[in-house]
């Protein structure tokens, strides 16, 4: 269970989050939608304890994020896998090493052992041993994203967080990544928190949509309920979504 209670955050004069209260039960795919600069990514950073709220509390399972020792924080990081907007794979390592780098014992494994241990995770994201020995720069952006998802999954987290997972991808690759998010989280019973601008794919994949505007939640419900939302930003998103179909 991920829970935020009355979370507020300001950067100088600018108030980015205002009294955000939210509970995401285990196993749910929850999309955070909103315009740029409305606090979605800031909210995500709060869930990892990378940022601390000015007011309010954030809880992930049994972790109270306000007072974590470095050791407990590392445990939290293993509980919550994150896929960044850009894949952030280590250029100096092979794909296989990138995938298993957080596993205990990694430092002792040879490159072949790294390939063997990474394969199950690469297969989960539709890749195989043909990419295992490549370096990230030798792969397309879409494949790098898949590797980043495999890496996040390899620590066997309970929750997966995605920060704009389809930035820079073509529509086909975006569809594939969203299908992958649904497949892997449902298969492993994980919670998925996805920060996105992409309403069309959110409607197709999410169990729940949360729309943020000026740091506040303006919609929180099922995707099927979203078209009935009266908020101006929601209407703008729907109109833009309809235009993209034409």
């Amino acid at each position: 269970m991920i829970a935020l209670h009355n979370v507020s955050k300001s950067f100088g004069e600018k108030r980015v989050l205002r009294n955000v209260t939210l509970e995401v039960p285990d196993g749910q795919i929850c999309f955070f939608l909103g315009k740029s600069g409305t606090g979605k990514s800031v909210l995500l950073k709060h869930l990892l304890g990378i940022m601390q709220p000015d007011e309010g509390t954030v809880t992930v399972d049994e972790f109270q994020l306000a007072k974590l020792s470095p050791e407990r924080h590392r445990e939290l990081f293993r509980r919550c896998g994150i896929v960044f907007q850009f894949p952030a794979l280590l250029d100096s390592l092979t794909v296989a090493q990138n995938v298993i780098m957080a596993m205990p014992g990694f430092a002792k494994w040879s490159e072949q052992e790294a390939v063997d241990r990474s394969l199950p995770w690469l297969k989960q994201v539709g890749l195989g041993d043909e990419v295992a020995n490549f370096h990230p720069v030798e792969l397309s952006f879409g494949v790098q994203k898949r590797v980043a998802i495999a890496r996040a999954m390899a620590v066997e987290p309970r929750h997966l967080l995605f920060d704009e997972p389809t930035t820079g991808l073509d529509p086909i690759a975006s569809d594939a990544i969203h299908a992958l998010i649904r497949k892997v989280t449902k298969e492993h019973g994980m919670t998925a928190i996805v920060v996105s601008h992409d309403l069309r794919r959110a409607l197709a994949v999410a169990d729940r949509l949360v729309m943020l505007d000026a740091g506040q939640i303006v919609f929180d419900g099922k995707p099927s309920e979203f078209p009935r939302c009266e908020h101006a930003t929601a209407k703008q998103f729907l109109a833009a979504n309809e235009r993209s179909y034409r």
Partner: protein
Amino acid sequence: MMASMLAPFEFLLATLRSYRRPLWPHGEVINQMHQVGLGSMITVIFTGAFVGAIMAVQVSLELRDFGAQGFLGGLTTSVTLRNVGPVLIAFLLAGKVGAYTSAELGNMRVTDQVEAIRCLGIDPIGFLIAPRFLAVVVSSFLLLLMGLLFTLLGGLAVASWQLDVNTLYFLREIPRFVTGSSFSMALVKSLVFGTLIAWISCYRGFFTKGGSAGVGAAVRRTAVECLVWILIADYVTSFIFNRLGEFFGWGGIAV
């Protein structure tokens, strides 16, 4: 202010602590040594040879006035080994190895690679810095020693071919000026300079901020700070060695 002054020392301490439990990938230190060391070998050989050659020409000009060219081998080698060689080669390595390491780490920082490692529950200092630090110290030390060997060869070549000094005579005079303390000083300076290059480049690279402009700034600071600290360390080690030499009565000419 105080915190920022202590930050490099805390960083060094965290790096040294991380060696208790290695986290980096199998073969990473060798890989890093290959990256930073092998690519610098030719440059170091050329630099070393020409530093030796320049020193031989300069010392020869001074000695000629006194009709003391017989001391060329000893004086050239002593001055080069104790001071000029390590400093000039370390300058070169600061530009090559230091800049490379700083740019690589800086790029990792601005492309979220460091954050990604942290978010996987891995200590980025143990994972990224520890193998690079070790590789840069060892590579710089070995490259400096190799460069010093080539300063000797460069001086010898110029003395034989250009200055008409007999090769055997050049070599025979070396032990009169170059003692165990000269070699010790060269070894210690090489190790100190290598450690400084590793420390500064890793620290500046790791704490890069501000996108690609920030990477450029980190590399510039690495280069400048390495040069300044190498000169300071050169003075301090020379001073300490000379004092120790006086105290223990070591032979050789302190330069």
